[in-house]
Every structure is written in C-alpha cells, then in structure tokens.
C-alpha cells in the first residue's frame, strides 16, 4: 500500500499561552478531496500554516509521501510539492499572468536570460490544463477574483504540487464561478493530486469532498467519509461541547428600547436589511462566522460606513450616523476588534488613550487640563482594575486584557447609551476574560444597551440575553439567551435542519 501523501501525527502548537493545536492527526491520500471543517479559531489556519511551513509546530510529526519532513520552511514545503491557494490570491497586480507564474516557477540566478516565448508558452499550457481561458499577457489587475485564483492553481500545478490546499476559495465567488472552480478541483483529483479543502459552506463539502475532518478547540474530533455524514451530524461534531465556562448570570431586567434598527442596510459593506432592537440593560449577542457581516454592521452603527437604507433610532428618535463623531455625539460607543492595531494606540500613554474620545467634554475650550485627565484615568484604572505601572505608562506596556480595559474605558468615558463590543475577549487570557465578562454584566445592570460581537460561541451564548445570528450580511435568526449551540451554529451556517440536537 502506498503511504498517504500527507500524514500529520499529534501536532501541537501554542501562541503565547493560547494552545491553538493540541495534538491533531490528519492524513491526505492521493486523488482525494479532504475537507477541513471547524468553527472560527478551531485551529484550521494554524494547521495550514504549519503544513505550508509558515509556522513551526511545537510537537508532533509531519510525513510527506511517507518521509519525515522536519523543520519545514515555506521553501521546503514548496519543494515537497505543497501549494496553497488563498482566499485572497497573493499575486502581483501590475505584472502579467505569465510573469506571475514565472516568478513562482522559474529557477535560476538574477542574471539569467528570460525566454519570453517559453515563459508565455509555459503559462498557456498550465492555464489550459485547468481549463482556464486566460491570456498569459493579461495584467493580473484586470482579472476577476476567481480568475486570479485559477492563476494561483496554475502556479500550484506548474510547481508539480501533489498537495493543494484551498482556504475558503469560494468565499468571494459567484455561483457560476464556483462551478468552474469545482470542475478544476475535480480535474486535480483525477490527476492524483490531494486537495485539502477548507470551507464554511456545508453544501460545498457534500458536493466536492471525499472525506471530512472536523477540528474543534485545536483537536481533531474525527475523520469520516462524506457519504456517511449529514449536515446535522457535522454541526454536532463542530459544536460538540457544552458551555463549560461559568458566565456571570444576567441580573438586569431589560428596560426601554434604546437602539432600534429597521431594515438597515449598507451596500458598500454588504449589510442587508437588519431589523433588531436593543434594550437598556440588555446584552444582545451577535453570532456568525467570519465575514458574516457582524463587524460591518457595527461599523454602520458607528458611522464608519454609513447606512444607505433603513432607519436607525435611538431612544425612539430617528438618527443619522454619518461619521464616528456623530455616532459618539448620539451616545454610541464602539470598542473595535483587533485592539493591537486600532483600539489602543500603543505608543501613547494610558491617560491619553482613555481621554481620546472625550476631549470636547473633559476639556472645555479645548485647553487640556492634566489634573482632570489624571483623575479620570485613575478612576477608570481603579474601576476596571487595570494592571499598570501608572496613568502615563505607554499602552503597549500592558497585557492584552488590560489593553482591552483601556479601550473600554475610553468609551465608557463618553457616557454612552449603546456600547458595541467587537470580539472583546479575543486573545485575552482566561482570567482577564472573566473580568471583562463581569464588567459587561455590570454595565448592562447600570442600564447600558450592549451589542456583543463574538466568535466565541460559548461566550455569545453565555453572556447574551438574546442572540442575533448573522449570515451573508443579513440577520437570519434571533434566538433567546442560553440557546442551544447547535441551533446557533445551524443558523450561522444557514442549514435547513435547524435545531439539530
């Protein structure tokens, strides 16, 4: 029996304190399409990055074609015939298709002579092999997204790849383009290539894959032939666990409707017809997969990408939110995701970070009063238990959880009516996470209307009074707090078999 193309045994990988992979087994045979499935953060990307050599595993073994591959680097992975087609193709937009392919495939020194005819011929052959009708002389910039993906696949083929990884290749494709891609994938399979196929769309997995492996919390839950599975079974495998962590109980009785959305849409960011009420003292969770439109909705509410249809009302009064400044003035606060980039300015002192959104209120006449700034900062440092060396320590000196508290304090200082939290506990350690949960609960109790975006399913379920589930830019379901994880997942995936358990 021939050894599998790729065999991963007991792979482990940690980032800081977070364990992304806890001993994953995976294998890929020649001529099969093997789907990889899992929630956000289940470890799919980490696994892929290890296979392509971008990350080094902490433990475990990688066998390629039956041989042990140690210290895999991107170049070594390529030499072993591993290629990856990303959702956003990484091509050079100003170079032609042929030049892009040549950059990947041609070997030789910097002073080698370029045979333009051979280069174009080679590109044409590769494109023909996958049935793509693209002129090699075209500039990549003028190609559509799926055409660019086809170029990527041509590169993979040309490099003699035996293992092709496709990371959500259909996320930005139309139905027709999707079919073209499927045909190409089936061709690849026929020619003996092994394809690792990552997608959130279950119907694609049923249409395309031979086997499926489900990852959950960095572990593989199981590998099964697709023919033996149904949607409900897959969802059960993805969710699997109970809400293990203890969340502080909801103590507040929701009051008046503070934020009311009626059919709110924004064509530019793909938010479509969202209707939702958030009451004072209520935590409304927003669940959904990455790209489902949750952050986009938050950005609409904060005036970053203003709504172009529907109505937004605050305390019963219709409002227009065209800029963050207007949103702040109306009492909306947005704690963005990815705080390392845009939530906290790492170079600036904590105090400056905390007062950044309240200059108008704190400093009358625009003259900074350092005493007022200091006392406000000290109040929030005490109130939110920020661990720091002082109010003027730079934001970058804090741990992730404490940075998140500083970001939160900036917005609490504006005395908002509506607080939008976008992934507030992402990359935060367990202790700080539960502290942030308690703070959110307390704020709701004090009468704030909270919109909580989180990809952490237990967190959304445990923290929310109600859970809105988004898919494809629309709000597809509103479930009660403590709802069944399977139901949330099913709504997020958009399957028909809702309430699978």
């Amino acid at each position, binding site marked *: 029996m021939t050894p599998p193309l790729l065999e991963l045994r007991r792979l482990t990988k940690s980032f800081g304190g977070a364990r992304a992979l806890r001993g994953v087994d995976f294998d890929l045979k020649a001529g099969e399409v093997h789907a990889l499935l899992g929630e956000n953060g289940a470890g799919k990307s980490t696994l892929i990055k290890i296979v392509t050599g971008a990350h080094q595993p902490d433990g475990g073994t990688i066998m390629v074609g039956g041989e042990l591959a140690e210290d895999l680097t991107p170049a070594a992975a390529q030499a072993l015939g591993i290629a990856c087609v990303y959702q956003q193709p990484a091509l050079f937009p100003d170079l032609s298709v042929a030049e892009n392919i040549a950059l990947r495939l041609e070997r030789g020194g910097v002073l080698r002579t370029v045979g333009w005819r051979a280069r174009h011929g080679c590109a044409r052959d590769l494109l023909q092999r996958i049935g793509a009708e693209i002129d090699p002389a075209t500039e990549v910039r003028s190609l559509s997204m799926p055409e660019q993906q086809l170029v990527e696949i041509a590169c993979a083929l040309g490099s003699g790849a035996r293992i092709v990884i496709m990371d959500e290749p259909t996320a930005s494709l139309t139905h027709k383009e999707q079919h073209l891609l499927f045909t190409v994938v089936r061709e690849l399979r026929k020619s003996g290539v092994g394809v690792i196929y990552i997608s959130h769309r279950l119907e694609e997995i049923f249409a395309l894959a031979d086997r499926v492996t489900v990852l959950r919390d960095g572990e593989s839950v199981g590998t099964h032939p697709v023919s033996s599975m149904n949607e409900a079974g897959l969802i059960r495998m993805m969710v699997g666990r109970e809400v293990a962590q203890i969340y502080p109980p909801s103590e507040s009785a929701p009051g008046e409707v503070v934020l009311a959305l009626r059919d709110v849409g924004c064509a530019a960011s793909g938010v479509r017809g969202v209707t939702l009420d958030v009451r004072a003292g209520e935590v409304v969770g927003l669940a959904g997969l990455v790209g489902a439109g949750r952050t986009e909705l938050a950005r609409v509410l904060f005036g*970053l990408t203003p709504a172009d249809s529907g109505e937004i009302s605050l305390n019963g009064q219709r409002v227009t939110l065209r800029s963050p400044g207007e949103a702040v003035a109306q009492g909306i606060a947005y704690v963005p995701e990815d705080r390392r*980039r845009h939530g906290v300015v790492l170079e600036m002192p904590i105090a*400056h970070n905390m007062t950044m959104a309240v200059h108008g209120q704190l400093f009358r006449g625009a003259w*900074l009063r350092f005493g007022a700034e200091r006392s406000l900062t000290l109040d929030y440092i005490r109130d939110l238990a920020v661990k720091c060396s002082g109010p003027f320590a730079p934001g970058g000196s804090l741990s992730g959880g404490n940075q998140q508290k500083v970001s939160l304090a900036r917005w609490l200082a504006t005395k908002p009516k509506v607080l939008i939290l976008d992934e507030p506990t992402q990359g935060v350690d367990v202790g700080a996470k539960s502290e942030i949960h308690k703070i959110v609960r307390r704020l709701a109790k004090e009468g704030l209307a909270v919109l909580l975006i989180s990809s952490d399913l237990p967190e959304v379920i445990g923290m929310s009074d109600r859970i809105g589930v988004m898919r494809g830019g629309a709000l597809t379901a509103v479930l009660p707090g403590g709802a069944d994880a399977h139901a949330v997942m099913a709504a997020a995936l958009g399957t028909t078999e809702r309430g699978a358990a």
Partner: protein
Amino acid sequence: MSRYFRELSVVGALAVALIAMAVFAPAFFQPQPLLSLATREAPTLVVACGMALVIICRQIDISVGSMFSVVSVCTGILAARGWPLLLVLPIAAGLGAALGALNGALVAGLRLPSIVVTLATMVALRQGLNLVRQGEFVNMPDTVQWFGLPQATGQWVLVICALALLAALGLGLRHLAAGRFVYAVGTDAEAARLAGIRPQLVTFGVFVFIGALTGLAAMMNIVQSPQVQPLSGMGLELKVIAAVVVGGVAISGGRGNLWGAFAGLLLLACVAPALTHLRIEAYWEKAIQGAIILLAVVADGLRERRQA
C-alpha cells in the same frame, strides 16, 4: 526622565559644543555676531515649528522653501509700494495659509502622498516665480528694513517674535486638544478615526498651519535686508527638516516636540560660525551637519529596534 531622553541628549550635545567653544574659541561668544546669527535663523525657527507639526502628523512638506520665496517676493512688492507693515503681515500669513491649503487639500482631500504633492508644488511655485519675476530683486525702502527701527532693536524684535511664537506653539501642542489630535493622527490615523477624531481635517489643518507660519517667516525675512531675493528660500525645506529630525521628531510620526526641534536647529546653526572661530575650512560645514543628522537618525533607528 526617559520620556524626554532624546530631546535632552540634543540639548546635552549642544551644551558640550558650547562649552568646547568657550574653552577653545571664546571669541565665539561676542554678542553682536551671535545676535546676527539668531536673527538670520529666526525665520527658519518659525518654519521649523510648522515642519515639526507636519512630521508629527506623519506627513512632510518640502514646498516650504518655494512658498517662502513666493510670499517674500509678493509681500516685498506690497511693502515696497508703501503698504503699512501691519497690513502686509496678515496678508503674508494668509497667502502662506492659502498655499498650504492647496497642499492640504491635495493630501487630505484626495489622499495623495504628501512627498509627491509638495514636490510638485515646490517645483511649480519656484518655476512660476522665476517665470514672472525673471530673477528680479525687490528693492525695499529704508522704512521697511528693521521695521524702520535701529538695526539692533529690529534684530531683537525679530528674535523675540520668533521665540514667542515657539513658546506659544510649544505650549499649544502640549496643552490644546488640537495638539493631542496631531499626535494621535500621526501615530495611528485609523485608531484616531475610531475615536471620533477626523484625521483628514487634522492633516489639512497642519498643512494650512505650516503655510501660515512660512508666510510669517517670509515677513520676518523681508525686513532683514535692503533687497528681497527671489532665491531667498532655496534649500529652506532641507534645513528645517534636518533641524526637526535632529531634534527628535520621529519621521514616522507621532513623536517629538518643538523644544527638541529648537535644540536641533541651534545645534545645526552653530556649526558654521563655530568652524569660522576654530579656523576650520567652511567646506566642512555641510559634512558636519550631515554627520549630525546621520547620528540622530541612527540613534532613532537603534532605539526603535530596541523597543520592537
């Protein structure tokens, strides 16, 4: 205070240089030549303050030299025709602000890179001026030179005006919310936007501001000599950028202050007279200034690498 270590190190270097001069060439400290030096550098200081703001905002303006020349010639003509200086002064600032607004609109409004935009306005203004004036000087009446005051008094007025502007701007940058916005936008424009600050408006503002300051500096220039040369602002942009960078303003934005820029300017400005007094050939001036700039940039680079 490690927070101001960078600024203090420039002040320290300046102090060491001055002490060395006191020991080896005490003649350096004659008051009259020093006052003349200070007067010559007063317009540069005013422009350097504006440049510090622009660079803290993570932009750059290399058109200040050309703006300086244009405003100098235009206001020189008005003053020569007998317009009162008190009227010419706001016109100078306004003309500079208008030219700055052009840069600001292109950079903030169309989101073009400031180095290219101001390169274009630098060339356009310089060539436009040459075309119209054909290199002609403007002869100034005696009533304009030194504001019609005795020379020493006029010099003192200019130096004190420049220092007062520095003090006002330095305090404003630290104590006004607008100053904080400049730092926030220069450090992380997207974070500032998410905090409700309007980065494009701030960016536009700093360009208008440096324009107005350049206009004022041009005004301080035309009262210094009996003639206004159309080439008077040549190379000014490099001089002020060098002063600002030596003074610890990070070219990557978000860091630095006007006091540092002031110290940087003093350090660079002292090189030429110091060489004269030490009887070293004047050809060394640019080389030494270049070495100082290089040293400052290398120090910043090492510091950032240590932090990363």
